[in-house]
């Protein structure tokens, strides 16, 4: 029985971690390329949850809505970059932090004003469906979220590795000046990257809605977790974000059961500080990146 419990916790942690990974992939992309600490990342997820919810009210299944929402958030992300983020690129970190925090405040209070603080719940035929793998039981929605999140992260990874645009993004991430000299249109790369990062947040929101209600402050928790994952995995590292996401998910589940559910955050924050103190570049980050920091 205890083995079954352990297995259940690990599987639940991995499934949860898949969603964390998707969130973090978007954040690490923005963080690593545009060099912006996006404190509003979780609130983009919140807006995407609402978007999916309203499409569901119009009789569109959340999974059919997901591609639409993702595409819309890609454009939304590019618009936000063009209107707001671009103006802060040469500003100090602090200014960037407070601009994205300002965005966060605006998004949350907008959601509250426009849609009230009510909890919006999507209920579909498959909401409660469960798949049993021996004694281990997982929900269909959890499994779908995990698989889609992993597939998307994989595709994004391939996109960065195999395409010309991907190469341009990676070059810009490594050295903005040199990339510009090489003829890469850095502002366009930033615009595209920010859009891609926000599209990930949008997809994560669409995948979360069948599992979790939408409400104005739902994104705040996700932002914090995504930050922990990104820095844990190593700044700008794709595999790091995925492994970090899964790790945080599993730690959350195991510490919740064996330690105390109220201490789960303590467990991953402690791990986070521990990793940064002992191996400051994160688990898979490039050694030394924490010392150079992120210079604008």
């Amino acid at each position: 029985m205890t083995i079954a419990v352990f297995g259940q916790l690990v599987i639940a942690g991995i499934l949860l971690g898949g969603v964390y990974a998707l969130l973090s992939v978007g954040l690490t992309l923005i963080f690593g390329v545009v060099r912006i600490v996006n404190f509003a990342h979780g609130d983009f997820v919140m807006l995407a949850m609402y978007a999916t919810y309203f499409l569901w009210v119009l009789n569109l299944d959340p999974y059919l809505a997901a591609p639409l929402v993702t595409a819309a958030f890609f454009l939304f992300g590019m618009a936000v970059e063009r209107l707001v983020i671009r103006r802060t690129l040469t500003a100090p970190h602090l200014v960037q932090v407070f601009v994205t925090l300002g965005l966060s405040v605006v998004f949350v209070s907008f959601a509250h004003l426009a849609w009230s603080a009510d909890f919006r719940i999507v209920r579909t035929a498959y909401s409660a469906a469960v798949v049993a793998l021996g004694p281990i039981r997982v929900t269909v929605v959890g499994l779908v979220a995990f698989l889609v999140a992993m597939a998307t992260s994989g595709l994004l990874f391939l996109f960065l590795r195999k395409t010309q645009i991907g190469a341009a993004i990676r070059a810009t991430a490594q050295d903005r000046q040199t990339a510009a000299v090489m003829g890469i249109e850095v502002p366009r790369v930033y615009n595209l990257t920010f859009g891609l990062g926000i599209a990930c947040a949008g997809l994560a929101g669409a995948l979360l809605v069948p599992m979790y209600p939408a409400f104005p402050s739902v994104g705040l928790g996700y932002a914090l977790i995504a930050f922990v994952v990104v820095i844990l995995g190593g700044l700008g590292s794709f595999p790091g974000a995925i492994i970090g996401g899964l790790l945080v998910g599993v730690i959350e589940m195991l510490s919740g059961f064996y330690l105390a559910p109220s201490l789960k955050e303590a467990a991953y924050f402690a791990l986070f500080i521990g990793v940064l103190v002992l191996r400051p570049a994160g688990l898979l980050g490039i050694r030394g990146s924490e010392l150079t920091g992120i210079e604008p």
Partner: protein
Amino acid sequence: MRDPGEPRRGLGSDRAVALWGLLVAAVALYAGALAIRHDYYVDMAFHVMLWAALAGAWNIVGGLAGQLALGHAAFFGIGAYASTLLLVRAGISPWLGMFVGAAVAAVVALGLGGATLRLKGPFFAMTTAAFAELIRIAAVNWDSLTGGTRGLWIPWEPNPWHFAFRDRRSYLLVAVTLTLVVVVATALLSRGALGFALRSLKDDEDAARSIGVQVTRVKLISFVVSAALTALGGALYAEYLLSIDPPSVLGFDLSIQMALMAVIGGVGTLAGPLLGAFAVVTTSHLLRGWLGGHYGALHLLIYGALLIVFMLFLPAGLVGLLRTARQRLGRRRRGRVMPEAST
């Protein structure tokens, strides 16, 4: 990172002017505090001065040393809990308890800083934020000591010795004093060899190290002083609230607010935190008072939008704005100096 608010003149270079400026500012602040009669404005002034002190304390590590700390809620909460626990559990006056809190915060900062101050930028920011969250979670879960999320409340019997005043202006006077202490501490730290070390560290850490500045030691000093002063603010706030719980004295939003006000005012300057606290506190209080009951979260929407616009167009803060204005004015009328610039 460029330094938008580097003092144009070192404070030590003209000590007499600085001292006189401080004296005048102190007299003006105390007199102003005593002149306010209306409780709402006393409360507003109290929040302005408290946040001026907190933003000023943050400015010591965030501005002078240029280290982006985002976990000062931990020190604030330590001050609040230490003084309240000593009062409630042991009957020790908060006048004493606040210094115990400051000492605890200093020790904690020494440990935390020793482990993390070599991290840079966002890494240092997120580690300090995570640490503050750990302290908050500890306060939530250590129920037998802290009362958990139910919090602690302070019995209210007016007794100046127990830091419980009938007249709210007394709290305001203490807050003014704390702000002045922070200003003096900032001024003292930015003088002499230490001030030079801080400035060089902030401009370029590697260069500072190469000319023999003990970078880690300098960072630690600023972090510890900043933490201790923040804890004093926490103790003061607890006595003002008369009841504390983890979200109200250990929440992440507190860490953000401290940094925010310093940035709005002008990072690294003496007057910046005071100006920033004044701008942010009065704006948010007045917006909430006018719109709060009627349009739900509209006051927050406006506040967030103002924040973005301000950051985009005035990244050097209010001090930067005043400086530009003075330069333009100075070109036309030589010799007139704004009071903010003299500090």
